[in-house]
């Protein structure tokens, strides 16, 4: 199973060990903890879920429940529509951040934030192929 970024709605940026995802349609944004960022980065790079789970299980100190935690994380990403199932399967050995995993107790997280939604949603410049709620100004 592979996932890709939902590029039609989401912009993702990974820097300083923290992934930030912005929903350009709603102004909602998402922040991930260090382990979540590492998992997310590997998924976007083409690792399958199985690759990520295998890499997580191999980390020193990984608890028995790490697979469950990863499944919950993927459900969260899918629920937020940050990622979509990929059409074509791919495999790539995942390289997870062991220090981040340990610091986050092997629990990847992605949290939703709406505190600047009004500002981000208000970004008035939109290029769309189909009108989805915004309409051309009447002349």
């Amino acid at each position, binding site marked *: 199973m592979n996932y890709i970024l939902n590029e039609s709605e989401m*912009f993702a*940026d990974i820097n300083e060990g923290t992934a930030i995802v912005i929903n350009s349609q709603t102004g909602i944004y998402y922040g991930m903890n260090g382990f979540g960022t590492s998992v997310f980065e590997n998924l976007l790079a083409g690792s399958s879920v199985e690759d990520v789970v295998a890499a997580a299980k191999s980390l020193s100190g990984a608890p028995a429940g790490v697979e469950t935690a990863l499944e919950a994380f993927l459900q969260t990403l899918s629920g937020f529509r940050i990622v979509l199932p990929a059409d074509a399967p791919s495999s790539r050995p995942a390289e997870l951040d062991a220090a981040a995993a340990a610091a986050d107790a092997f629990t990847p997280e992605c949290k939703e934030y709406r505190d600047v939604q009004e*500002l981000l949603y*208000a970004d008035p410049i*939109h290029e769309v192929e189909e009108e989805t709620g915004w309409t*051309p100004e009447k002349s």
Partner: protein
Amino acid sequence: MKISVIIPVRNGSNYLKEALESIAAQGLDTETIVVDDGSVDNTAEIAAAFGARVLRHPESRGQVVAKNTGLAAATGDCVLFLDHDDRIREGALRTMGEALQAHPEAAAVQAKVKDFLSPEIGRMDGTVIRPDAYYGLFTGAILIRREAFAKTGPFPENIHDGEIIYWHTRMEQCGLAILKLDLVSTDRRIHNTNFGKTNKEKEYKDFATILRARLKGKK
């Protein structure tokens, strides 16, 4: 209450005159500062013809740095940063200034923006704009007490856009209040060369940088 209107602009001869006319139409003794960010057209001459103070960057440093340049030179009690291609509605600056005077607890007042399609743009090019007025990602509808910047600091110069999110964050962190007014103060021009439209990827990367710092501040 003296108002400084700061206009950062690069090669803005197409629309700058309309922005300056909209300031003149306010009938206030405003200080108008045009920061010419390395223009190669007659932007500076247009600004000077309206009696604006013209500050010049010999080479372009971007609109965020230009705003800081204007802010450093401003002498008004409060400031508003207007894009060169937009227009302040008649009477709006007075209303905003009076609101700020009536509410000493507020460090800034924020009005609404209304988009308009620039006349030269075709209606079939895929550009759509909001039909309603809104509180936006936009400094051109916010009048800020200049003294507030002593606490928040200037805009961050490592980004090219999204400085308003940073500013909001800093206002919150400093405990400074923003009073929202039920007023449409500013008409925002939508055209083919809007910064946001032509630099979307870069723009969102700047947003992400600011939001990442915002989240760190929450911890």
